[in-house]
């Protein structure tokens, strides 16, 4: 029973983790996974590969038969996380367009003024816009 309980907790933990990643994570959080899961493989096979131009993930892909299972899984996860966050950020102004017109009239765009206004108006702002702000990591 205790065994079952522990596994149930583990499953629950895993679900929370995957749920959290479905909500998008920051670039630092994403790339940290690559360093943690693939650090040894990078050192062994991609020592001179560059972080730029997806050099590390491309090198790991080339060496996929030689790298650890965890790294093979996570290199794809990391690319997905970065792509998801970028997509979420590019959506915000479109999704929040009406809220900005309604609650941030006269606010000068730029330097985060609009975002500050939307964050302040959170209780009135539409659920979609609030969600978009969350997904972009702008809160």
């Amino acid at each position, binding site marked *: 029973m205790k065994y079952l309980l522990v596994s149930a*907790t583990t499953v629950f933990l895993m679900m929370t983790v995957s749920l959290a990643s479905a909500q998008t994570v920051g670039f630092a959080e994403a790339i940290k996974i690559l360093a943690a899961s693939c650090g040894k493989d990078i050192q062994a096979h991609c020592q001179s590969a*560059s972080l730029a131009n997806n050099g590390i993930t491309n090198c790991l892909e080339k060496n996929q038969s030689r790298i650890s299972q965890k790294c093979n899984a996570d290199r794809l996860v990391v690319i997905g996380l970065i792509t998801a966050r970028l997509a979420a950020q590019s959506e915000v102004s479109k999704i929040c367009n009406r809220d900005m017109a309604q609650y941030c009239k006269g606010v000068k765009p730029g330097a985060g003024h609009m975002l500050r206004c939307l964050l302040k108006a959170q209780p009135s702002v539409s659920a979609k816009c609030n969600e978009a702000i969350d997904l972009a*990591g702008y809160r």
Partner: protein
Amino acid sequence: MNKLFLSSVAIAVIASATGAFSQTKLSRNEIINSLQGAQQEVNISADELQKAAIENIEKYPGANSPQQLPLAAKLASLRQFNLEITFHFDSATIAPASYETVGLIADALHTPYLQGQTFFIVGHTDAKGTREYNLELSIKRAQAVREALVTTFQVPGEYLFAVGLGEEQLRDPSNPDAAVNRRVQLINLGYK
């Protein structure tokens, strides 16, 4: 025994998770807070700054620079933030231990608080080795950080400029070989 093993693994996982949370190191908001609020446009170009460092070596040769760059005072007045990024020895390859830091810069630059403003990414070394070599290495390292931000993390490149100042602008001139001098400096040049 199996049960016990499982529970201890679970505890270890929880322990390491809290460890990761309680470790209050550099955060995205720390970078944003230091960089935001740039005043109106500043008239320094990255080329100008790069040239100033090269000329400083030509004009005042020797093991160490006898003086700060002419632009130093102007630069010091700008919104900025110093970061430590580890590279492989003698190279411009960013070490995996510093991926997270580069990611944090991307996180900060992608927020509306900093979008649309121009930034210099300035590489600095300590004073060990020749000034020419250090200048060259710092240029390559600053470029490596810029390239990672612009490509892998898709920060718009038109706002980011890499400059290497080698050992021409030490953070602690009284300890020229100190680790504190090795840094990547982000400087906000404001809206263009």
